């Protein structure tokens, strides 16, 4: 393939992309360095986090337990791992609040490798709330490593315990519908959240509040206060704003017959 170059070494047609890539990567790296030096960007509070508070409050009022799960994925996968981590951050927050107000918290787990992490997260949260003695390891329940085995045990758990709140944040697949259905049957207030696009609509219509897509990561970063995660969200925001500006400007210019932006993008 014949290659045309710009300035002798940059490949023609890829320059604009390279500039975008470098700007976004540079911004992300910059924010991460800043965060490592202690300057963490502020993250806005999401409506979903308020909904979690409301659900916990409701469960306490009714004297019922809270069930909080973090999806069925492992920690390692490139796309679903971060969702599990976000789910565990939410779990940490829920555990802390539950310990403070004295509500019973049950955590259903599917992955053997995630179980110790989940148990540790909850125990730490109880200790931080000064209620380390109230932590019960048997409430971190390993249900089954099989997808439908997990969901049928989870459904059984919902039926038996009749929780006041059922919080599901992480990567869910087909079990999302079974869990949300049973949760609403037993009258739990349900907060859900996933970045699995095909499951979002079902969570939206079957639960009381749903965190959509990337909100899951933001909620996780917000609640865990992990500086590097927050910083990389700030880097992504730079990309988002660049995209928005070009899209709006470009659309208007095209309408008046100018191809300026398209010409620049063709570099």
């Amino acid at each position, binding site marked *: 393939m014949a290659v045309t170059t710009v300035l002798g*070494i*940059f490949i023609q047609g890829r320059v604009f992309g390279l500039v975008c890539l470098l700007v976004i990567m540079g911004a992300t790296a910059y924010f991460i360095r800043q965060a490592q030096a202690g300057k963490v960007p502020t993250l806005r509070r999401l409506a979903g986090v308020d909904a979690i508070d409301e659900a916990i409050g409701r469960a306490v009022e009714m004297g019922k337990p809270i069930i909080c799960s973090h999806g069925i994925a492992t920690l390692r996968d490139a796309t679903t791992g971060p969702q599990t981590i976000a789910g565990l951050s939410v779990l940490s927050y829920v555990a802390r609040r539950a310990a403070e107000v004295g509500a019973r918290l049950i955590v259903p787990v599917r992955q053997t490798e995630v179980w110790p992490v989940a148990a540790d997260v909850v125990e730490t949260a109880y200790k931080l709330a000064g209620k380390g003695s109230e932590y019960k390891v048997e409430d971190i329940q390993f249900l089954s490593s099989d997808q439908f085995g997990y969901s049928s045990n989870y459904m059984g758990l919902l039926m038996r315990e009749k929780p006041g709140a059922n919080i599901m944040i992480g990567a869910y697949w087909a079990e999302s519908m079974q869990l949300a259905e049973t949760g609403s049957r037993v009258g739990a207030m349900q907060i859900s959240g996933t970045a699995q696009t095909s499951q979002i609509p079902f969570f939206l*219509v079957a639960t009381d509040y749903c965190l959509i897509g990337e909100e899951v990561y933001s909620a996780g970063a917000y609640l865990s206060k992990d500086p590097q995660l927050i910083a990389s969200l700030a880097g992504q925001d730079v990309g988002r704003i660049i995209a928005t500006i070009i899209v709006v400007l470009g659309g208007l210019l095209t309408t008046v017959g100018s191809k300026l932006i398209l010409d620049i993008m063709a570099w």
Partner: protein
Amino acid sequence: MSNILRRIEIPIFLTIVFTLIQVVPYYVYIQPLDDAASYIQRWILIVLALATFVGVISILQVHGKNVAKRSKGWYFSVIVLVFTIVMALVGLPLAEVGLGDKNPVYLFLFNYMLQPLSGTMYSIIAFFIASAAFRAFRARNIEASIVLVSGLLMLISNAPLFTVFWPPFKTIGTWIFAVPNMATNRAITIGAALGLIALAVRTLMGIERGYLRGGGAEQ
């Protein structure tokens, strides 16, 4: 010696080098680097293919333990073990001794066991949808109502029964697909690109180590 080999910096360094070998020649025209990138792309497929037994061994470990300990339902683990081993053995690419992807046992297992099982496994979800449709899909607030109405219109536009009856149903479905759905997914696509770039930056800075977790003990 083993202390040096154990250092986490080695895999992180390897990750960074191999990332850059692929990225740089895509933008900057340097023939030798481009050749190296192509060579590695081919070479790495062999490394990858050789990991094929990892899944098999993991399964053997987990279910072997179940059987050894006679834990609950261990006889199901025996079934798993037998089929894993038989499938892996008869498929070994040794056509000279009659094994491989044309072996009759391999074909039988694939055509009459794997094929019906995996198709059926995913079709079970249809029943969950039907049940949830009845008992959980509620217009509990404005947003859920919009999803529900738009979803029902989409269902209707996918079923000839309705579109034959009133063709504009299809037009509505096409509009939902091409306008609000397109807009949502375009923003999600851009967001996914940004997420991937941020992941790459964290990896290049050596702070993203999620993929290096695990190992050592069984899964």
